[in-house]
């Protein structure tokens, strides 16, 4: 029992389960899954589907945070990649052709990768603080996206493109597979090779790991490149979901949601040890929370308030100082009860 309580995934999973239970009590239909035409429907499936963009972004953010960095530009990168992909499709002769869509996706993701590499260059080579290096792109990126779309919301009609976020495959949303594949690839790279350990080493002490022969520059650079690439994929999914490239709204505040997901999952913002499983749980928690808030009839605009409460509770629970206070409280209560008993 104690081992379970001390497991670092205990609190994140407990929070997620608590949310699911509360939701189920409030509306029993929450956990119901119906089958229509061999496809699964239900609030839980919606959460799986809608969490895909955040999942991709949060995975990249986990890697960046593990190196003691932060990537504020992911939302802007999403906007750019969506704008690039949709502008290409809108300008092509055959918007419904599969080759067109594949080229559009590759273009969007490719540009995102370049932006991620640029972030990595600023942080790893030039040596700028991560917050500022990525702030530059956060500011400029949406401007670039607006320029690409010409200041308008580009809308398109393309069935294959629409399929990526809204389509179903083997009964489950296609977007869900995308996030599963992303999780699997990142987990394999980080946990089945030495990369994860090296990343943690860089995050715990960049100077020491460099002296120990770890190529910290390349690892940090790679983390930002991966974050950019994943954000680009998220941008494709987002634009596919609404079938429009909205430079202002795409990925707005997703960097904050992603950071929150990473922190909820138990990864410290101080860098070092990271937990991909924790991030996955964190993303589902946030998405469930958002769905709960919508269900409660709270206007979506007010939902940040609830997220803020969650953030504060989580960071307070994680804070060593609060834990110290709580432990002392528990001990005094115990000794008091013993004194009473004797």
């Amino acid at each position, binding site marked *: 029992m104690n081992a379970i309580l001390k497991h670092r995934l205990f609190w994140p999973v407990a929070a997620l389960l608590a949310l699911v239970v509360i939701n189920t009590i409030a509306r029993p239909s929450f956990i119901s899954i119906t089958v229509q035409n061999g496809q699964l429907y239900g609030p839980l499936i919606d959460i799986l589907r809608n969490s895909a963009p955040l999942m991709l972004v949060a995975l990249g953010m986990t890697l960046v945070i593990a190196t003691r960095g*932060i990537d504020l530009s992911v939302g802007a990168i999403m906007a750019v990649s969506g704008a690039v992909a949709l502008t290409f499709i809108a300008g092509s002769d055959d918007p419904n052709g599969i080759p067109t869509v594949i080229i559009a996706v590759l273009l969007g993701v490719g540009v995102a990768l370049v932006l991620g590499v640029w972030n990595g260059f*600023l942080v790893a080579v*030039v*040596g*700028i*603080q991560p*917050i*500022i*290096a990525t*702030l*530059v*792109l*956060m*500011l*400029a*990126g*949406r*401007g*670039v996206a*607006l*320029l690409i779309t010409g*200041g308008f919301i580009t809308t398109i009609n393309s069935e294959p493109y629409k399929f990526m976020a809204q389509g179903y495959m083997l009964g489950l949303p296609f977007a869900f597979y995308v996030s599963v594949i992303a999780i699997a690839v990142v987990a394999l790279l980080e946990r089945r090779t030495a990369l994860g350990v090296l990343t943690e080493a860089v995050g715990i002490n960049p100077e020491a790991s460099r002296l120990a022969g770890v190529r910290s520059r390349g690892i940090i650079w790679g983390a930002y490149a991966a974050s950019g690439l994943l954000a680009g994929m998220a941008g494709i999914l987002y634009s596919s979901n609404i079938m429009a490239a909205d*430079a202002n709204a795409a990925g707005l505040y997703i960097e*904050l949601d992603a*950071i929150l997901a990473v*922190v909820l999952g138990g990864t410290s*913002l*101080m860098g070092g040890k990271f937990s991909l499983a924790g991030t996955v749980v964190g993303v589902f928690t946030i998405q469930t929370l958002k769905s709960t808030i919508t269900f409660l009839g709270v*206007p979506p*605009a*007010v*939902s*940040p*308030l*609830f*997220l*803020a*409460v969650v*953030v*504060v509770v989580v*960071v*307070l629970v994680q*804070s*060593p*100082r*609060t834990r110290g206070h709580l432990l002392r409280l528990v001990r005094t209560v115990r000794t008091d009860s013993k004194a009473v008993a004797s």
Partner: protein
Amino acid sequence: MSTLTAAPAATASPVIDLVRRFRSRHASWIPVFAALVIFVAMLVGAQAYFGNFLTPRVLSALLLDNAYLLILAVGMTFVILTGGIDLSVGAVMAFTGMMGASLLSQGFPTVVVVPVMIVLGALLGLAVGVLVQFFDVQPFIASLAAMFAARGLAFMVSLSSIKVEDPAILWLQSTRLQGAPGTFYLTPTGILALTVVLIGILVLQYTRFGRTVYAIGGNEQSARLMGLPVVRTKLLVYVISGVCAGLAGVVFTAYTGASYPLTGVGTELDTIAAVVIGGTLLSGGSGFVLGSMIGVFVYGTIKTVISFLGAEQSWTRIIIGVILLVFVVMQRVIVARTGAQRR
């Protein structure tokens, strides 16, 4: 021949010496000068290009259109000088603005509403400070939570915009203090902003509190060991930022004549960008309120030039991003060089 070549070298070396000595003594002012040079160059360039840029009307508007940003930047300078960051300022400004407009529309008098707005800002700032100081939460996360909270609260007050018809608030923006037509003019909001800048300068340069702020940014551990009131100062810094955000809420409400819950999305980034362009190091310990003011003016000039050009406002953000990048790289070089000198 040798005397001829030696002579100019002899006259040049004291100058170079002087420059070198100045640079080493006032290293922290160099980024401010760089910002000033960019600002002046932009003004001169714009005047040369448009021919009618350096008019009293445009220059007055430069101050008055950015009065709220100037107030926010002063508070942000304090926070960044201690090595922290405050992401909540834009949302707090929106929240206090909404709260103020809502209270005014319910018939509360202005003398009550304005202090309430400032106190609300201070309380949110205090909350951030408490999280940072007593629970070891990173400033980034603590102020992020405050940003979420304030934005949600702003929408809770009202989902749509509230018009402000209070004469005292509107007076702040509509009164023009002008000697003669066609000359520079000021509004009470502009005077308010300049007063905040002045107070910021005085507090940072001439009070014990101000020196403690620099000391914490330089090295918090040392400041603690020196017996400086680190806890109190760090709390106060976030309260100051909150107060500035509340005041900016008043000014922005007067400026637009209405409050809208989506006001100031991204303003925190504009504020941080202005402070950094003004030469304040994000790692803390080095920077000036005066520099932040120049940073705000650089930002405002870019906005004005782009509207003069009739170009897409999206260029503002791109250019700000590029300038920010140039300044950050420049700071990086300066820090590396002074670090090498010390060794």
